[in-house]
């Protein structure tokens, strides 16, 4: 769960250290409210909520992030450990996805959440989650095709 959860938090931050702060705060909040750890949708929703609070706390940071999200700045990309050029290209392509598609992809692929859990975590319908996932895959496939 650790790397996937960190990757999810990483979407709202530029640095891994900030993402770790978010994960830490989420665990403490989850713990304090005595939620069951197997309620994954709620855990990821907590991470997301804290990540958004984290951004709001610093207005300067919020402005930077908002601008970055609007422009789909490729520097805000999930961090991966790739082994070859193909994986590097795939990681870059994932980083270039629109934010709403990327968060669904991250939850589905690297956190193995069901569409029902993703819907609960992101506050969207299951159909929306599934369609964003399909759009993300289609977009990746298109971008990775040899020109």
């Amino acid at each position: 769960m650790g790397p996937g959860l960190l990757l999810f938090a990483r979407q709202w931050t530029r640095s891994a250290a900030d993402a770790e702060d978010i994960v830490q705060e989420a665990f403490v909040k989850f713990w304090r409210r005595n939620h069951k750890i197997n309620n994954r949708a709620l855990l990821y929703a907590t991470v997301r909520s804290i990540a958004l609070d984290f951004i709001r706390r610093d207005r300067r940071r919020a402005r930077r992030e908002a601008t970055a999200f609007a422009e789909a700045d490729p520097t805000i990309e999930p961090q991966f450990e790739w082994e070859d050029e193909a994986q590097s290209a795939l990681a870059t392509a994932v980083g270039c996805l629109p934010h709403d598609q990327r968060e669904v992809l991250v939850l589905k692929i690297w956190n193995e959440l069901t569409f029902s859990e993703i819907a609960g975590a992101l506050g969207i319908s299951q159909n929306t989650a599934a369609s964003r996932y399909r759009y993300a895959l289609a977009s990746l496939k298109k971008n990775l095709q040899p020109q």
Partner: protein
Amino acid sequence: MNDFSELENDLRALRPARPSPVLFERIEEAMGEDRKVAADTDSGWSWRLFTSIPLRFGIGLAAAAAAVLLLFMRINTEQTQNRGKDTAQVSPRGSETTRGVPGVSGSTSPSAWASSNKFVPAGATQVVYNERDEGLQFADGSRRPLRRVRYQTQQTWQWRNPTTGASLRVSYPSEEVVLIPVSGQ
């Protein structure tokens, strides 16, 4: 969705960066601090927490550690009680409150000592900080493959004395290998 299955496999093969090794320690520390504050405001919360955390791995080791710790605390309590009896006659407080009748005061009686040395469970955490898939293997005499998964965790148990506010914490790393039967397809 089938036309994306290859891409999905490629994505799954891409591994996210691992958290820094100190992250789980930071989380554990933060939870400990938070628990301390929460225990002061709601004494029942910590006990509920203690029983509700699902302990999947290393439960035997954790139970053994807890048993040893409780045994240690019992011995310590008995020693303290005996010391309490011995020192009641010379303790300043005893002489002040009972005016030359040591051991009669409730505050210095053995039962008071015992109650003040009672530790109650205050929390348990288990942070799985590494999970490694070590591939398939066949157990002796079995044709069915098993997936071997190694979990590395950090277990923490905590007790608290509600009378004195003292707390006791045991934290240790544990490792467990789990064999999961793989169904044929």
